[in-house]
């Protein structure tokens, strides 16, 4: 039967786009030549695939399978990243270059070993976990409540379900540590003759102080306020950070040997030049003291206030004078959200947050905004302040202009305004648009230089100022930022001071902090994930209750919750299998079986079976192994006389290239599991 022309169906992907006749022929020839040209060009480029490491050749009975475990839960301990601050950057860089840096550590400005914390908490060695964290994050209890947790943002677990609750674990470790603080806090020995003065007791000053104390120097700290803590004390609202936590952590540092003098304002009560004479080095960690206020019409009226002053009043007097009034907060940052929530707590009837940015690009953290909206804050986005409406010198309202865009194409701050104006009635206007340093009295009588915009002249990488022996760190250098970012500058400044005091060059052989870039994770689909595998839920006070007073909003994890949470840690890049079972879940052929027990103190991988007869050598398991414990061996040509030998158990997976197939004949027995210690009830 002849096939009619119409019956031949051309696939949709095939089309005859060439012209008819000779022209089409030339088109075809040129497309062939183009194709050949493309492949020829590609073949000259560097291949994009990995070059597998050459493995030693071994002969028949010693052959291993295609996969190998480097280390295993229950047998090996993961390495803690714990080094002196002056070599810490180098250690981090080495780990980063060797692809052994866990993402949580890499993304933290201060490189806190969150992986080590997870390990120690899961092992129920909680005071050790606290001390490990304190090495890089001087106030774990405080940061455990207020940190913006870049560690959790980079956590590999984001990819699978939800990140490990690293920040709540800091807080939990602090609470557990308080029970044994008295016996574990002993003054550090002073082994050096030199001493260092630190002006300001904020997070950056404290972290520098701790680094210097560990190195054996005497450290004297001056604080202007009656209580220490810097911006944590004056700025952060008490519902986020109870003051007793802050003071007890700083008391811990005093117990370690810090000489803290509160109520002394350097520059007024005691001149800076005197400190320079008395000490071998001076560190300025004074932070930012002044709120910026836009010079718009009416900005000097009664009822216009800066954010720092407002928060100081809320924190120290518990009263801001807004009871029964309508508050208009200008700004979209975290401080603005703090101001708005404090205003609610001090009795404001209506709190409106007006930001230049649209609701998607608000600089405040999304969880902060969400909590504020829950409590009743009204957000008005994409408006710029135009004029404070006054009546007899008192604020009666605020006029705003619509804002079309805040950033230009290159991402720089260049707001474009539209024509639309709108008025909002209000009684108090709080400017929360940034802070500035107030340095005039501090630097009077010294050779320190201040730039035309009132900023201290500081080297941004070595934290030196224009005067020898005077260093600066924290927000006075970086501008408004996060607490953990300030702490990171404190470590860097401490390194500079250590080198200065030892008479070493500040720059030579010094490694800058590596700044790895990590993938941004979309919210994972957790619909199929068991509740027991997901992140512990932080208990929170009800929105309608918490908006009335300054009691903490987040209530903390229990001991059991914290240990379960710590056991969720995948121990990225530790090269020690944590029994996460993701390899087994990834395997398209169901060739891997993983079982784990989570007894406190006896966590162990009880089973790791690889059925080589099912394995298709796709490598997906090793590709996605978060710990890098599971690796290719490079030995794929393997055969046995008996099918049972194709199943590789835990011992066989762990065996190095030497020795015979794990039959026990070579005297190497497969590793067992530790017996969990008996716990006193």
């Amino acid at each position, binding site marked *: 039967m002849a096939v009619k022309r119409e019956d031949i169906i051309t696939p949709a992907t095939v089309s005859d786009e060439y012209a008819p006749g000779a022209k089409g022929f030339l088109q075809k020839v040129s497309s062939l030549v183009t*194709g*050949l040209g493309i492949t*020829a060009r590609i*073949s000259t480029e560097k*291949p*994009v*695939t990995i070059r597998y490491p*050459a493995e030693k050749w071994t002969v028949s009975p010693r052959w291993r399978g295609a996969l190998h475990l480097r280390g295993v839960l229950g047998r090996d301990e993961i390495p803690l990243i714990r080094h002196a601050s002056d070599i810490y950057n180098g250690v981090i860089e080495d780990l980063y270059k060797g692809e052994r840096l866990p993402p949580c550590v890499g993304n933290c400005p201060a490189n806190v070993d969150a992986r080590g914390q997870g390990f120690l908490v899961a092992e129920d060695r909680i005071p050790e976990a606290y001390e490990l964290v304190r090495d890089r994050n001087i106030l774990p209890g405080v940061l455990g409540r207020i940190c913006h947790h870049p560690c959790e943002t980079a956590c590999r677990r984001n990819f699978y379900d939800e990140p490990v609750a690293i920040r709540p674990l800091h807080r939990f470790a602090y609470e557990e540590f308080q029970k044994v603080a008295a016996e574990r806090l002993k003054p550090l020995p002073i082994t050096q003759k030199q001493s260092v003065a630190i002006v300001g007791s904020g997070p950056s000053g404290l972290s520098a102080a701790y680094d210097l104390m560990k190195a054996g120097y005497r450290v004297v700290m001056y604080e202007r306020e009656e209580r220490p803590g810097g911006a944590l004390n004056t700025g952060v609202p008490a519902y986020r950070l109870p003051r007793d936590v802050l003071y007890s952590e700083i008391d811990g540092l005093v117990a370690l040997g810090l000489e803290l003098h509160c109520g002394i304002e350097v520059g007024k009560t005691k001149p800076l030049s005197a400190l320079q004479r008395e000490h071998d080095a001076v560190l300025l960690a004074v932070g930012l003291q002044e709120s910026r206020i836009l010079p718009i019409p009416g900005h000097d009226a009664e009822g216009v206030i800066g954010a720092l002053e407002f928060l100081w009043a809320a924190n120290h007097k518990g009263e801001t004078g807004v009871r029964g009034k309508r508050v208009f907060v200008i700004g979209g940052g975290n401080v603005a959200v703090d101001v708005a929530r404090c205003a609610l707590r001090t009795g404001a009837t209506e709190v409106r947050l007006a930001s230049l940015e649209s609701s998607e690009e608000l600089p405040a953290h999304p969880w902060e905004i969400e909590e504020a909206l829950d409590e009743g804050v009204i957000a008005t986005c994409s408006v710029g302040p135009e004029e404070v409406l006054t009546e007899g010198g008192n604020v009666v309202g605020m006029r705003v202009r619509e804002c079309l865009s805040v950033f230009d194409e290159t991402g720089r701050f260049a707001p474009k305004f539209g024509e639309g104006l709108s008025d909002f009635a209000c009684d108090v206007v709080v400017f929360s648009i940034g802070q500035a340093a107030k340095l005039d009295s501090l630097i009077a009588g010294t050779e320190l230089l201040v730039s035309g915009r009132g900023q201290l002249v500081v080297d941004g990488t070595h934290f030196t100022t224009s005067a020898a022996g005077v260093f600066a760190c924290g927000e006075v250098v970086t501008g408004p930022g996060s607490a953990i970012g300030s702490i990171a500058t404190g470590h860097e400044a401490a390194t500079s001071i250590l080198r200065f005091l030892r008479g070493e060059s500040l720059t030579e052989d010094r490694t800058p902090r590596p700044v790895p870039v990590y993938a941004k994770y979309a919210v994972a689909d957790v619909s199929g994930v068991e509740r027991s595998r997901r992140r512990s839920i932080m208990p929170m006070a009800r929105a309608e209750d918490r908006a009335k007073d300054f009691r903490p909003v987040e209530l903390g994890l229990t001991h059991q919750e914290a240990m379960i949470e710590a056991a969720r840690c995948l121990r990225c890049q530790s090269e020690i299998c944590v029994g996460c079972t993701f390899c087994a879940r990834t395997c398209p052929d169901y060739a891997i079986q993983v079982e784990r027990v989570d007894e406190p103190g006896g966590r162990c991988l009880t089973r790791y079976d690889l059925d080589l007869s099912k394995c298709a050598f796709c490598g997906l398991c090793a590709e996605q192994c978060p710990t890098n414990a599971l690796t290719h061996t490079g030995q794929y040509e393997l055969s046995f006389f008996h099918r049972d030998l194709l199943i590789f158990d835990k011992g066989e997976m762990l065996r190095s290239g030497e020795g015979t197939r794990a039959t026990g004949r070579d005297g190497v027995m497969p590793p067992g599991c530790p017996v969990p210690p008996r716990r006193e009830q």
Partner: protein
Amino acid sequence: MTLLWGFLWGVAAVATIAGGAILGVWWERKVSARIQMRYGPQQIGPFGSLQMIADVPKLLFKEDIVPALADKAIFKYAPLFVFGPVAVSMVVIPFTAGWAPLNTSVGVLFFLAVPSIEVIAILLSAWASHNTLSTLGGLRATAQMISYEVPRSLAVLAIVLLAGSLRPLDVVAAWRWWWMPLTFVAFVIYFVASIAEMNRGPFDIPEAESELVAGYFADYSGMRWASFMMAEYGAMIAASLFGAALFFGGGWPFGGALGVITLIVKAILIMTAIMWVKWTFPRLRQDQLMSFCWKALTPLALVQLVVVGVVLVWL
């Protein structure tokens, strides 16, 4: 005596093809890898060059499976008849000026005709497998190989016209450098038709993994399968050597042993181009295959013949 010589030449041809196939497979894996931005073999030997040494024993010792319903005698020996003609065709290649293993006055015709016996062997092996996919592959191979004989022979005829002889040694002796631009189209036709003759991509329609598993040798394994593979590489080597001799003057500009090396280098370049084409273009459809042969290559070859004829008159 003649029989003994024939036997020796046969052994030499088999050894050449086997060695060439080993090197060819390694080279093809490297070429294809670079085109796909991979490294290719890298573990065994420098640049993975000893990879095939590891693979050959594997092929030799693999289980030799004969399907239960196959026509066993034909199934078992068809691979030899696929491989044999390719090996035999090597014998007329003029390796250097004045020397070919078999100096015969019909050498060009011999080279074009003898490997065509392969078609029968392929059809036999496909039929003997008692497998619809194999049979289909065999039929496709037959249609393709017989069709492409025509433009291939016509392309070679252009050179034969210029040389005035069917004896390969005479062709090489008569060869002048200006033949290269003159017979360029003929070489392209010979090149394309040769790829189709050896059933390589983009003309691997008889094998077409995605539709026919592996076509006519789908049921073969171990050394018998390797015979098919070696026949493919043997055909590639023979076609490259013969093409280099006819279209690029054999050992020109050198003679003697240096001429042999020159010929081999030219042949390697042609082989690389064959691999390059395979890893660049997707597989043709059956109708595209046939219309390309009959509507494009054959008329072009005839035009080339006319051009050469005009030049001959003008000389």
